[in-house]
């Protein structure tokens, strides 16, 4: 990762660690609510590529009734380029995690999984993200992805569903 000042402007602004860490925290929170345990480290790397890629985000199902595996059999095109996007977003995920820990909104448990810390963020009203804005729908979809991954089976199986290696 280049320093903040040296980064290409669009990557600095659009993938800034504050925004990405909020998305990760939303996913961790809903994962935790669903499964009553922290989110495994490898799954965190799937959140940003699922939520930030426009056409993938729009193709995500409305409810978790449609399981990840079934969805992938129906939408094989979602896998195209997913591996490349995921690996190019790895440094951003790591940075956002570090930022989230430094600001105390996420935390690491003893078993190595990640969990969130309550009441460390202001209400969403503090910013101008109305329902029709992109950041708002990214936040909602990140919550969805957390719940979804919680019901998708083993970590290794989820990775092979996408055809990628941890």
């Amino acid at each position, binding site marked *: *990762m*280049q*320093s*903040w*000042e040296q980064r290409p402007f*669009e990557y*600095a*602004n*659009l993938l*800034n*660690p*504050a*925004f990405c860490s*909020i998305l990760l925290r939303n996913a961790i929170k809903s994962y935790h609510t669903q499964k009553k345990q922290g989110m495994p480290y490898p799954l965190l790397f799937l959140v940003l590529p699922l939520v930030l890629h426009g056409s993938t985000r729009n193709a995500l199902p409305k409810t978790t009734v449609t*399981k*990840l*595996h*079934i969805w992938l*059999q129906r939408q094989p095109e979602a896998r195209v380029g997913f591996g490349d996007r995921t690996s190019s977003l790895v440094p951003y995920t790591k*940075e956002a995690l*570090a*930022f989230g*820990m*430094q*600001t*105390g*909104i996420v935390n*690491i448990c003893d078993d190595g999984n990640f969990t969130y810390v309550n009441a*460390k*963020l*202001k209400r*969403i009203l*503090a*910013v*101008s*993200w109305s329902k029709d*804005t*992109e*950041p708002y729908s990214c936040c909602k979809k990140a919550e969805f992805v957390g719940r979804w991954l919680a*019901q*998708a*089976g*083993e970590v*290794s*199986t989820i990775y*092979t569903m996408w055809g990628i290696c941890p």
Partner: protein
Amino acid sequence: MQIKSITLYNSAGDKRTIDFKLGQVNIITGDSSRGKSALLEIVDYCLGRTESQIPYGVIQDKVAWYAVLFQINENQVFIAKPKPLENSASQNQVYYDFGTNILIPELAHLEPNSNDDAIKSYLSQLIGISPNQTIVEEGGSRQKFETNIRHAIYYLFQKQSTIANQGILFHRQQENYIPQTIKDTIPYFLGAIQEDRLKLQKELHQARQRLAKALSSLKEAESITKKRVVIGGNLLIEAQQVGLINSNFIAKDASDILDALQSTLEWKATEVILTGNDQFPELQAEVEEIRQEFKQIHEKIIATETFLKKETGFSKEANQQLLRLESIDLFKKDNSNPHQCPFCNSILPESIPSLSAMKESLINLQNNVKNVEVSQPRLIEHIQQLKEQREELRLQIQEKEMAINAAIDEQEAAQQIRDTNAHIARIVGRISLYIETLEFTDENSQIRSDIEQLRKLIASYEEQLDVGEIKAILASILNRIGQQMTEWAKRLKLEHSDSPYRFDLNNLTVIADRPDRPIPMKRMGGGENWLGCHLITLLALHKHFVERNRPVPHFLFLDQPTQIYFPSEGGYLNLQKIPSDGNISSSADMEAVERMFDFLFDVCEELSPHFQIIIMEHANLANNERFQNSLVEKPWTDGKALIPENWVSSQD
């Protein structure tokens, strides 16, 4: 694909696992009603069959989940399904896991993450079924469909009621539509259809479309050429009417017409004296000047509007970035030590951006956008002004043009004299234009050669896709399978083993070709022969599948093949104690039983490690070493059965 293990779960989370050996014969022996036959249904259920056929009673009562671990080359797929809900015989929810070395998970883990349809297509891909489509002969009314793993199960199971049945050969053959399905899908499994047939069909379809297009453009081009000759002829007539060409001239062909027309280009008008002062050049220059100005203003408007559009696009994108940067306002505190790693507290080589650094970017970008948004209203106003100026100039041009028209009207009188000249000049002008645009080359030759090539391409595709070709390949494959069956019929000493045996695909039965007439399976004598026909056909098919590396699961379930050697069904079912060798009705039958088992062991060894046979049997050949070595578990007698004793006694 072979079976590594079968696992049952009860609602308390206890597990009962039966392990199988890969690439070998596996035998489960035991008393009746111990759940042996249910194993076959459990595997079918876990292969994506939605209607459960697992017998009601103790099994369905006590088991909560059924699971099978499949081995596919070096990978493993674990597939588990809950039992159907109350009042229902079907269930399509699936939990699956994929890996190279899977541990059987605990009940708590089994949360559905897939369903039958997805698993069906997933397993089909895993065992290597490529995209395909069944073949329907010309004029057939059946639907085409895609062969998948569910169409391979006819070769995997032989239930107790099928294995020695004189009327049917395959699992579920007695059900409606199944015979046709078997006949439609077996050509693919046998490898009579190219793997890329579907692609070829698509390419053929595309080539046909291209051909149709090329043909229609050729037709169009030819009609244009024809039209050209017609136009030329009309021009010739006109030229003759005004005396440019001798009116007695008769053109024989297109080139004649062209030569005659060419000659008219020499024509020159006789001079006409004009009177009066011609203001034209002056006015013309003035209009030209205003037009220039008009054009410049017009260009300015276009340029400014483009600028405005790009500016809007820019500020839209910049606002999206601002929105995301606003995230920093949600944080209550700054990251105090941005250069310290939160995981290990070491110093980071590149520190994490701080909120304040992001704040700065936010302010910079905001200023940039502000810059743009301030200028927009001014730009819009400016465009408005320019448009007003443009309108004014437009009016001026119109006025000038009216003046020019007036000047021309003055010349009208002189014009009269020139009219004849002008008329001829017009004809000559049209002729010269016509000759200029005439193409002497045959521009259709390219299209013609394209069509020729497309036709060849289509013919080659059609040849490759010829259904007759498939039939020929299929006949030769069935022939080779028939030879194998004949050899094995001799070995098993079947009734007509001095004649060739073959598998009759049309009637899904076995035929022995006696010199006087063909004998179908149902006309052969006795259960022993029927059983023999089943075994040699299924094993010959599997041998072909394995050797040709076809995408069919490589295992075969045989449910109680020795039943026919017992004097009565009662005698067979009441077998209690091992060894049961004594219960066989005669030593000749005993020999036949041994011969059958030896045959099964030999075929499995010949195909090792690519083929697995699983046999459920009442009989237990205590003196047969190979038989004893193949036992999966201790015989299911006394308290031992598929369902453990303690499950039965426990109260739900």
